[in-house]
Each structure stands twice: as C-alpha cells, then as structure tokens.
C-alpha cells in the first residue's frame, strides 16, 4: 500500500557461522526429507508397474504372441463379432438411459428439498456397494422362470432373463451411479440462484433447464457418461448371472473373453481383451483431457 510509510525491507542477514551444517533452505513443515520422498515415489511406481502396467502389457503381448494374422483372425469369428455387436448394443441402450436417469436424480437431489431425499441419495449409491453378482441374481429372482414375475412373463411370451433385455437391465442397474454421482456435488455447489435468475427473467422451467442448468453441467455430464460407458462395456459379474452365455446371442465381450479362455484359445481371449483394454485406455485419455481442459467446470470435487 502506498499510504504506509516505506519500511526498509528486511535485508538478508549475513549468515551466522554455525557449528553444524544444515540444509540451505528451511524445510516446510509438510515437506519430507529427500530420502523419504524418493522411497515413497519408488513404492508407488513399483506398485503401479507390478499391478497395472505389467498386466496391461501382458494383454497385448499375449494377444499378439502368434502374430498379427492370428490376432485379426479372432475378429472374423462370427461369435466374436456377435459379442462385440451385443456389447455395443447394450451400451447404446443403457448409457443414454442412465444419462436421463442420472440427470433427473441429480437435479432432484441437488436443487429440491423433499421428504426422503437422503434415502434417495443413499439409494443412488446402492449399485456401487452391492456385489454385481447379487445385482444379477436379483433380476433372475424377479424375472426368471421361477421368479416373482416369471409366470406372468411366460404367459405373455416375454423373455427377459437369459436374453438381451436382462443384460440391459443388469447393466443399467450397475452403471446407474456414474452420471448421478458426477452431477450431484457440482449441482449442489452451483446452487439454484442462476435458475432463479432465469425464472425471474421470464423463462419457463424447462427453458431454464435447457439454457442454464444443462450447459452448466455439460462437461461433468460428459465425464459421467464416459465412465458409465466404460463400465457398461466392461461389466462382467451382473451380466454373467443374467446372460446365460448363449454364444452368438447373449454373450458380451467380457463373457466372450472368459469362454475363449476356458477353451484354451488364449490368443482369441487376449485379442478380445485387448479391445476392452483399448477402450479403457481411450476412456482414460478422454477423462484426463476433460480434467485438464475443463477442471473448473467439473467442480471442485474433481480437483482433489
């Protein structure tokens, strides 16, 4: 400040002679010694290499062990093609569904006060806390031949379990939290005042949602959809229970990997697995780009 009397800055004091040698720079209280730091970094990298990099590399090495021809041959197998098609179909149905459900749930939880809100918040997380196998079993118990709704479904000639609808249902259930969990903290942080401003300016509720709420969460929504899609394509447990493993009909890529592996077709198994691993890598890169480019728009929770 200019009004403060100019005070001479503290001149660097001539170093007093010291008996012991100390680090030239005083260490911040949260800073560790060089040795501790190096040990920690080495541990982390070693762990990552052993448990993440190595298996990932192994997938591609195994897939290409007998050359590119064998690798590519896997994908001309009609059962493999069917598995890829089914996986894409399931993702194409369940991801948009969860986008709508997720936005609706997040909107309700973040912007409104109602009875049972905390229960709904807990329920959103349920698919994460329940074992996927249990999730799959629930659908079998509900829709299976001996399930609650089984006789009714049979009477109307509807096949849910051991068919595509069951796989979609299980996938939707398992991947439901991804979009909602991305959006809820961000929407809560943003509050409702922008929406209120739009309303006072004469915008209808739907118009406000389209022009204010949605644009404010679009990057977080994309982020959630990305994670949701990765899980939808990779889900094994729940889908395995409801699928019935009918080759060419109800076999998704993760299930197909298991079948091929059990048949000692290692190249085939790892070739399909390499596709899934590739999907994971693409997701990871896209996720990093989003975090780097739109970190602010994803909300503070992302930056921790």
């Amino acid at each position, binding site marked *: 400040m200019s009004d403060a009397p100019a005070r001479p800055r503290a001149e660097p004091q001539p170093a007093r002679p010291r008996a012991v040698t100390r680090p030239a720079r005083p260490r911040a209280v949260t800073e560790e010694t060089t040795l501790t730091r190096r040990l920690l970094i080495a541990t982390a990298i070693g762990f990552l290499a052993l448990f993440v990099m190595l298996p990932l590399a192994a997938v591609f090495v195994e897939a290409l062990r007998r050359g590119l021809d064998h690798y590519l041959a896997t994908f001309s197998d009609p059962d493999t093609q069917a598995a890829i098609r089914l996986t894409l179909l399931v993702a194409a149905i369940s991801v948009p569904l969860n986008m709508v459900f997720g936005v609706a749930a997040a909107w309700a939880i973040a912007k409104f006060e109602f009875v049972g809100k905390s229960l709904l918040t807990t329920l959103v997380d349920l698919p994460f806390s329940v074992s996927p196998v249990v999730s799959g079993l629930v659908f079998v118990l509900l829709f299976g031949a001996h399930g609650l709704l089984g006789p009714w479904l049979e009477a109307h000639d509807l096949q849910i379990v051991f068919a595509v609808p069951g796989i979609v249902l299980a996938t939707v259930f398992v991947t439901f939290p991804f979009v909602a969990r991305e959006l809820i903290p961000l929407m809560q942080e943003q509050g409702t005042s922008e929406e209120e*401003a739009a309303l006072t300016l004469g915008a209808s509720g739907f118009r406000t949602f389209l022009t204010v709420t949605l644009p404010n969460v679009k990057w977080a929504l994309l982020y959630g959809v990305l994670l949701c899609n990765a899980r939808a394509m990779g889900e094994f447990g729940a889908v395995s229970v409801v699928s019935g493993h009918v080759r060419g009909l109800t076999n998704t890529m993760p299930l197909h990997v298991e079948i091929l592996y059990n048949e000692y077709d290692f190249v085939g198994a790892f070739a399909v697995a390499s596709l899934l691993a590739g999907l994971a890598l693409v997701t990871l890169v896209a996720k990093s780009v989003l975090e780097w480019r739109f970190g602010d728009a994803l909300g503070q929770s992302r930056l921790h």
Partner: protein
Amino acid sequence: MGAAMSTEAMETVAIRAEGLEKHFAAVPALNGVDLDVAPGELVALLGPSGSGKTTLLRIVAGLDHPTAGRVFFGDEDATALPVQARRVGFVFQSYALFRHMTVGDNVAYGLKVRPRSARPSRTDIRKRVSELLELVHLPGLEKRFPAQLSGGQRQRVALARALAVEPRVLLLDEPFGALDAKVRRDLRRWLRDLHDRTGHTTLFVTHDQDEALELADRVAILDRGRIEQIGTPDEVYDRPATAFVAGFIGEAVKVPVTVAGGRVLLGPHGLPAPDGFRDGPAALFVRPRDLVAAEDGEDVADTMPLAVAGVRRAGPARRAELSIAEHLPAVEIELPPHVSPSRGDTLAVRFSTLRLFPA
C-alpha cells in the same frame, strides 16, 4: 410517509405486502408483515441476519410463497402469480450471472426467452443490450464472460440484466454485500443516481445501516420476522420507535438501568426520568453523541463524573470510553476538539438525549 412520490402516477402504491407470514418447518421467518412502497420510491429492508428481510424480498419476487398474506403490485393481486409473470427485476446477492454466457447474452436473456410474438428482433435486442451496458457504464463488454469481470462490474451486469425486461419493480438482495469498501461507496452513489434517472420502484435488502440510511427514501427495520419501524432515514435514526431499533441503529451501547420515583438509576448515578415513565427495569441506549462533556463553570449538579477508560480514534472523531460502574457496560462519548482527557482522568458529562425504553 414523507417519501418522494411521483404525483402523476396512477397508482399510489407500487408494492403492497399485506399480513405476510412465512414459516419454514414451523419456524416463523415472517410474522405478519405489512409494507407499502410508493411508485418510484427506494426502500431499504434493514435488519440483522435471520430477521426475515431476504424472505420478504423473495416473496415479493415470487421466488418463495407466503404461508399467509398477500402481495399486490399496484391494484393487481400478485400472490398467486408465478415468478415469470410478475415482471420483477431481481439482482441476487451473488449476482447469479449465467457463467457459460457472455455479458451480452446475459443481458439479452430476458428478451430472448419471450414468446415469439413479444420478442424484439435480433437487431433490437442487440441495440437494447448495448444501451443497457452504456447505462451501467460498461459499454462494449458484450463479448466478455462473467469470470473475466471484477465484482463491481458483475454487479452492474446483473443490474443491466434485470433492467432489460422493463420490470415493474426492482428488487436487490444485498446489492453491495460482496464488494470491498471503496467499491461499495462508489456503487452506492451510482445506484442512487441511476434510480433518480430511471425512477424504478426499488426494494433492497441490506444489513449495513450506513448503506440503508444513505441510499433509501425510507428504511424498514426488521427483527425476528416483524417490521419494527418504517420511516425516513431521519425518522428512524433520530427517533427510534422501539428498543430494538434504538440498539440496532447508531452505535449505541445498551445500559440496563432501573427507574424508580422519577429517577433513572445508573449504578451510583441518578438522572431525572422522562415524565410519566413507568417504574421498573429499563434499557438506556447511549450513542457517542448523546453525551456531552461539561463546560468549565457549568453547574456540576447536572453532570455525572465518569472515569475515562481509554481514548481512541473513530474516523474523523475522537472518542473516549467512559465507565459508569464496574458491572455496567462502558459508554462512549465523542470528544470536542479542545477536550483531551487521558486514561484514568475523570470527565464530567451530561446527557443531551436520553433514549430510554422499558426493558
């Protein structure tokens, strides 16, 4: 109500609140509020946090709904009118600018969302936006984003956005709350100026009494969901109607006293009580200017000798802290230039104004 009223106006009341009550889960936020605002008037809602002033503003805007009571705009009962149909210009405390839109799009929003039949052409909207930005002294900032503006600039964009819809009334929630002192003072003067030029009926919420007293035609002081007093800044400042207002306005110190037999007993000291004041416990509110240092040769019988506990600077004035008795809060006196006591001295003072309320 000696407010600036426009005589040509058809309506004598622009905003009327009638018996407004609001309960949040059984907790009353408003407790029977009546308020009339004349056309073109600038009225401040002043009160501590939790007094219900923002709730009142939001109910007038249609953002909250009253548990009981009615809101009128002119002769029209607006209680059941949805917020979109009320045509109010609302400026939020945090401005609530649309962060993903440019300044120009923010200001144009209210015009763009109109139904096609009532929507001005694109050129007209652009023209109106640049006029409004001119009005708030931000010409040419259409392409900026809110994040690229300072707090004061955002505040003015929010005001331009609210004015774009040609509102019947302008409602401001803590308009200067998030700004630093210098910007606040400038914007305060600027807002008063803008109000005088555009003549919008304006209701604004503040917890800052200087702001309310300087800016408003009339000030409504709220406490615990009730309007304690409403009047011109002079009325509420010079003649507080209730003990709450006396304690809230001005820098008053509340001294618990006892009135007995026509005397106000202040610790060891006694003063004549106002005529007809009931005996019993009472509260005396002492502002720095209510006490006067006795001149040399003045009759000592009317004065109280008080011990000086400290002297400090308060802006242009010097104040001394005086202790009445050990168990009573210290009061302050504004010192005349030629009196400069030091700590430990005794100063003979008398009351120029006695603000006494039954406790």
